[in-house]
């Protein structure tokens, strides 16, 4: 992100500013971004001020009524809270597992090739495939999870994993971690492999234990990668949609609802385009604020450390 800052660093004059060239080269990209990104965001803000079923031209301007309704909408706050829980789980569960696996792969060296290949597999599957797969794994009657628990004599732990309002969010978050761990693992692995081997050797010769080497050398070296990972997983969690929609649709009774699934349901099941756009715009504002704060904080970090 901070690279954007250095965009216009002074250079020797090479190509004199030729507006025609600039226009021709930028026009297609900027045009598409304007149509499919900028316009929708603005249009969404505009739609958040109307009441519209999406059919016909009966959109009625209602001012900030939708926003006021949103402020008192317990389902929305519940879904935002679920997004926050997902973000927390990503940072506290997903990232440490990814980091540990990256350390393992790096230590095991060439022999870990097959492990790496297998660990990577979930990243190649679509969310729909993963969702359908785990819906079957979680199936209360025939799913392998409950069958295995019963076979081990732990039948009392067998649950209706996706159908229980107390469990649905945790069950889906577990699958989201399953999907994302390999991504962060590869990210950390790249960070580790960029570390000078001499550093590691020198520390070992000085009698440092693996544990000390990890805390004193590897972790500080990975600082940048960890910061990126935290930022990505928090932002990704706040706008998450796919697996929850496929596995529970936000249910039962909104127990696994996220902002994005609530928005989708409001628009395409309840046909409240205006209110749905309000939820979407709120999500956009929240994500932007978090991103702005996070970037400001990490920038300060960078100058301090």
């Amino acid at each position, binding site marked *: 992100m901070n690279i954007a800052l250095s965009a216009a660093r002074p250079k020797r004059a*090479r190509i004199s500013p030729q507006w025609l060239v600039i226009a021709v*080269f*930028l026009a297609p990209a900027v045009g598409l*971004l304007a149509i*499919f990104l900028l316009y929708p965001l603005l249009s969404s803000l505009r739609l958040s001020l109307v009441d519209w079923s999406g059919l016909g031209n009966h959109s009625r301007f209602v001012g900030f009524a939708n926003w006021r309704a949103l402020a008192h909408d317990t389902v929305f706050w519940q879904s935002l809270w679920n997004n926050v829980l997902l973000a927390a789980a990503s940072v506290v569960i997903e990232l440490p597992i990814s980091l540990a696996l990256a350390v393992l792969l790096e230590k095991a060296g060439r022999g870990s090739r097959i492990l790496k290949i297998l660990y990577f597999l*979930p990243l190649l599957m679509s969310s*729909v495939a993963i969702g359908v797969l785990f819906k079957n794994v979680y199936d209360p009657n025939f799913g392998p999870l409950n069958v295995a628990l019963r076979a081990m004599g732990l039948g009392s732990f067998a649950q209706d994993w996706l159908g229980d309002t107390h469990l649905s969010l945790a069950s889906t978050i577990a699958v989201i971690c399953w999907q994302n761990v390999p*991504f962060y693992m590869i990210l950390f692995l790249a960070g580790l492999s960029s570390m000078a081997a001499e550093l590691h050797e020198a520390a070992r010769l000085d009698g440092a234990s693996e544990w000390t080497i990890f805390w004193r050398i590897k972790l500080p070296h990975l600082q940048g990668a960890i910061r990126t990972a935290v930022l990505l997983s928090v932002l990704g969690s706040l706008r998450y949609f796919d697996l929850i929609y496929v596995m529970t649709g936000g249910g039962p009774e909104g127990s696994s609802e996220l902002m994005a699934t609530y928005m989708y349901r409001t*628009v395409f099941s309840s046909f409240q385009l205006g209110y749905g756009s309000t939820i979407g715009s709120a999500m956009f504002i929240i994500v932007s604020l978090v991103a702005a704060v996070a970037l400001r904080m990490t920038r300060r970090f960078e100058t301090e450390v």
Partner: protein
Amino acid sequence: MAAEANRFQFPRIRIGVPLLGLIWLAVTTLPFLFVIVTSLKTQEETFSAPVWALPAHLYFGNYLAVLHGPYFTYFRNSFFVVGVSVVLIVLLSAMAAYVFARMRFRLNKLLFGLVVAGMIVPLHATLVPIYLLTRNLGIYDTQFALIGPYVALSLPISIFILTEFMRQIPHELEEAAQLDGCGPFKIFWRIFFPLSTPGLATVAIYNGIALWNEFIFAYMLTSTTAHRTLPLAIWDFQGQYSSNIPAMLAVVTMTSLPLIVAYAFGQERLIKGMMAGSLKG
């Protein structure tokens, strides 16, 4: 071989991490085994025999059913939509990156910042307007409905990656070309585009995988089998045969297979391509 190397390394690593490695190996691979084994069973067998029992005999009926269904229609649609989108993404982002990396003009920094900021936009905030726009343009439920959003939403990260890449290209090359009388168009085509090949490959792989698996836009902007992409094959099938678990898992296997085959051929390339995602944000 991997096991041997691991055992060899074990004394040097604390026990917790290898244990986690083994547990995670099980967590990752058991679901895949479950899918493959179950998809080779008959429907009755899933009720009569325990879930981990191997099929009494290999039953390929589920796969034949999938192949005789509209699988290839979904596949063709995915191939077309992703192929066209990736070509456009590579071309348009390379052109824009060239300008951001090399042209000096007042708005450069501001425009680049705005484009890069596009990376954090939650797609779902754009869904309703894009849905309405697609309907108004009369391309709802066609493959063309997907290409616009796919290209546009992939551009910010692609431009970011390629701008970084092109900044590393030495200035001497274009200076020499300029002396030879090459204009900016020629310099782009003859020097920047070919020299950026590794960056272009990264952009193509990263977006190719993401779009191949894309669900929400495809789900929202298309409605009939004739125009839907592979991730929706599972979705549609789930709606039709929710009780036929082996058949559904055969669909899961068949839709995941293309990327797994591609992975088998170009592992390192593919992993590097996916790493592009780490620049996101």
